[in-house]
C-alpha cells in the first residue's frame, strides 16, 4: 500500500529536523504511542495502540531512522507486530524549505500489512494514516511553538 502526503509546519527545516529526531518529542507527539525506548542511536522500540474502524490493537516493534541527510531527508523503517496483524513500512521523509519560517514535510512510502488489519482495515487504512499523520504534525507544530 502506498502512503504519501505532506504537511506545512511553521518553522524552519532545522527546527523540524531537530524535533523529529528527538525520541522525547516523538514519544509525546506520536498518536497512540504508549512507550518509546531507544535501543541504539536512531533505533527504537515502540509500543502503541491503534484503532482502525472495527479493529483495535496494541502494536509492538522497532523503528529505525536511516539515510539521514541533515535538515533535508531521512528514511523511517517501521516493523510493528500486533495480534490483529503486522505492519511493515518504509517511509521517505523530505523537508522542503518554503520560506525562512516555513517547511513543507513531504512523505512517501510503502506499507505492507497483514492479518485482520489487512482484512478489515484495508478500506479504512488510507483515511486512518491521513488522520494520524495530521495529528502527528499538529502535535509537532505545538511542540515547536512551546
Amino acid at each position, binding site marked *: 500500500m502506498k502512503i504519501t502526503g505532506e504537511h506545512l509546519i511553521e518553522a524552519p527545516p532545522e527546527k523540524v529536523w531537530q524535533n523529529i529526531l528527538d525520541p522525547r518529542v516523538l514519544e509525546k507527539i506520536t498518536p497512540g504511542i504508549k512507550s518509546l525506548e531507544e535501543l541504539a542511536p536512531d533505533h527504537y522500540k515502540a509500543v502503541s495502540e491503534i484503532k482502525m474502524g472495527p479493529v483495535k490493537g496494541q502494536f509492538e516493534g522497532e523503528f529505525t531512522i536511516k539515510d539521514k541527510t541533515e535538515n533535508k531527508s531521512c528514511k523511517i523503517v517501521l516493523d510493528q507486530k500486533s495480534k490483529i496483524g503486522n505492519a511493515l513500512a518504509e517511509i521517505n521523509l523530505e523537508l522542503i524549505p518554503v520560506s525562512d519560517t516555513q517547511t513543507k514535510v513531504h512523505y512517501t512510502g510503502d506499507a505492507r500489512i*497483514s492479518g485482520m488489519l*489487512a*482484512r478489515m482495515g*484495508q478500506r479504512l487504512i488510507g483515511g486512518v494514516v491521513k488522520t494520524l499523520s495530521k495529528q502527528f504534525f499538529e502535535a509537532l507544530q505545538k511542540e515547536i511553538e512551546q
Partner: protein
Amino acid sequence: MGKFIGKSIKRKEDVRFLTGKGKYTDDIKLPGMTHAAFVRSPYAHAKINNINTAEALKAEGVVAIFTGQDECGNYGVPCGWQVNFKNGETMREPQQPLLAKGVVRYLGEAVAIVIAETLEQARDAAELVEVDYEELPAVTNPKEAMKEGAPLVHDEWPDNAAFDWCIGNDRAEVEKALENAHHVTELEYVNQRLAPNAIEPRSYIADYNAADDKWTLYTSTQNPHLIRLLLCAFALGIPEHKVRVVSYDVGGGFGSKIFHYTQEALLTWATKQIGRPIKWTADRSEAFLTDAHGRDHVVKAKMGFDKEGKIVALLADEYCAMGAYLSTFAPAIPTYLHGTLFQGLYTTPLIHLDVTAPFTHTVPVDAYRGAGRPEATYLLERLIETGAKEMGMDPAEIRFKNFIPPFDGVNQPGYQTQVALQYDSGNYAPVLKRALEMAGYEDFRKEQEEARKQGKLLGIGISTYIEACGIAPSAVVGALGARAGLYEAGEVRVQPTGKVSIYTGAHAHGQGHETTFAQIVADKLGIALEDVEIIHGDSERSAFGMGTYGSRSLAVGGSAIVKSIEKVLEKGAKIAAHKLEAAVEDLDYADGKWTVKGTDKSVSFGDVALTAYVPHDYPEGLEPGLDFSSFYDPANFTYPFGAHIAIVEVCPDTGKVTLKRFITCDDVGNVINPMIVDGQVHGGVVQGIGQALLEGVVYDENGQMISGSYMDYAMPRADDVPMIETDRTVTPCPHNPLGVKGAGEAGTIGSTPAVVNAVVDALWHLGIRDIPMPLTPARVWEAMNAAKA
C-alpha cells in the same frame, strides 16, 4: 399428482425455524464442556520458527494448548477424489495437517488450538501464544502459480501443479475445426473466487466418553456418515463403531459443509486428551478465512461457428485453483463436475478442455452451489451469446439452432455427449420458448431502442443450462476417481400403531426434506402427512448415507425411501391377505387399505401394522415386524435444464446495474412440492446474481485477504433482486422411481451468465464485449469510460 405429491404443502420444519426452536450445534451445551479458540497465521506463507505457549498456559481458565508439535500434528484430513495427471502420474496429494507443522501455507491456517473453560478465556489465551514466523513469498492466482519461479506451496514438488487433466475430443482435431470455422468467438476471463457464507458458521462439539470408549461429534455437516467414515478410517484411525456423528439442524451449506474439515478431526482427537467435551464455532472472520471457497478459474475459451450459427467446435484452457491443500472433493470440481458439462444443451460435435489445477497460498477451493457446473454454463453461455452478437444473429435464435433434439430416454435413447456423460432425457426448446414469452422478448428490443433514445441503457440476457444432478452411480463416480460410493440409504419403520418413521441418509440444511419426503411417504402409503416423521442427521439412527449435495437428496435419497415403501407394501399385502383370507394377487392397495378386488372387504394399513407387531394370528413362515431398509444406487445422474432471462438497466452516469426482471423456466423433472422448488430456484438465482454483480474474494499480492468481512464482501440483499418470475416444464427422469431430477443448484447455474449477458447487451452498442465479474458500478463505469475513449 397424488393427495400430497405435487402440492405446495407448507414446510413442517419451518415451525421450528421460525420460532427459534431449531437445534443447531452451537445451541448444544454439554456438562463440563470446554471451548476452543485457534491461533491462526497472519501470513499466506511463512516458516514457523518457534511457538511459545508458556504465557498462554498460565492464563486463567486454560485447560490445554496443542500445536503441530503434539501428536495431533501427525494427522491430516484426506481428499476423497483422485484425479491423475494426463500422463497417468498420480495427483500430488499433500497431507492437510490438523495444525500447521513448521510451515503455514495460507492466511488463517491454524497453528495452535487453545482450550479453556469459557470461550472468552480461550480467545484471550490464544492472544498470548507467541509465534515466531519468517514470512515467505506467496502466490494466490492459479495462472501465476504455474509460472516459472513462482513461490512453491509444497517444496517437495518442482512446480505447483496438483494435477492436469483433459476431456473431450482430440485437441488437434478441435483446433483444426476452429481454424476452418466461419467465425470464432474468443473470451478470456476469471470466474472469480467466492466465499460460501452460510448463515450458520461451522460449529463442532467433540465429546469423548471414557467409560464406553466412545466419541460423539456434533457437527454442522451436510453428510454425517461420510464425515464419520473419513474421520475414523482416514484422519484419526479410530474404530468407526465407536464414533457417533450428529448433525441436527444446519443453517445452510451450499457445499461448504460437505467437506471433512481439520477442526472436526482435531476436536475429536483433543477431547480424549483432556477427557472433556470441546466446542468450537467459527466466527464470521474465520468463516471467510477457512471455509472452503468456490470457483476461481482463469479461463481462455474459443467457440467456432459455421455460417448458419451452428457451433462446430469448443476449446478451453483453464487454470483452476486448489488452494494450499486438497479439500474433500476439490479435484472433482473443475474436472468431472465441470468438463463433463461442456456439451450444454447443444449439438457441438467437437469439444476439448484442458485443465491445470495448481496449489495456491489460499484456503482450499472446493464445491460451492453448482460446483463446476456454473463455471461450465458461464463459459458456454457467454461464448454463444457473444458469438451470436458478433455474427449479427439473434441470441435466442442461435440457441434454438443448436439445441439437441428432444429425447425421453425411454422410446429414444439418452443423448451421448462428447464429454463422457449420457443425458437421461431432455426437451430443450420449450423452456427457452416459454422464458422468452414470459420476458416479452419480441417487444423488448423495441423498448430497448426507445429507451436508448432517451439515454437509458436497457439490456436483456439469456442463459440456458444443463446440469448433472443426483450425484450418484457408484460405478461411474468410482471410475472417475471418487474414493466413496454414491448411493443413498432409506429406512421405513412402520410402528405398531401404523405411524411411520423414515430414516434417511440424506441431510437437510434448508431444503425442506421433512416435508417433501413426508409427502411421498404419505401418498405412497395412503396415510396422513402428520403420521410420517423424517429422521436424519445422526449416524446412529440412519443406517448409512452419503448426505446432501449435488441436488441428490430427492433423486437418490427419495428413491431409496420409495424402494423401502415397496418392500413394506409387499410384506403388508401378505399380512393383509392372511387377515382377509384372500390371495395376495387378489388385493388392491389404495387410500391406506388393502381391498379384495371387486368386494368391500378390506383391512387398513394400521391394522396390518399392528398385526405385524402382535402376530398372534399370522401368516406361516413370515417374520414379525414391518421395517425395511434399502440402498438405492441409480443408473445415471439426472439432468435438469432450463432457461433464464435477465433484464437490466445500467445507469449511464454511475455504472450501477439494476435488475429489472428475472425470469426462469426450469425443468427439474417431476415436482413433489412446487413451493419448495420455487424456493430453491429463488435462492439459487440470488446466489448466482451475487456472483454476477457483487461477490468476490480478493487476496492481495502477499496473500492477504482484503475482502474478509461484509464491509468488503458484498452479499446480495433484498433490494438487489427483483421478484423472480418462475415457470416450469416437466420432462420426467426415466431412471428413478419418482421421475425427479433435482432442483437445488439450477438457479445458481443458470443465473450468472444471464445477468452478465444482459449487462453486456445494454452496453454492446458502445463497443463493450465483456466486463470482469463482479460487475460492480466501478467496473461497469470503467468499461463505459474506456469505450468512450
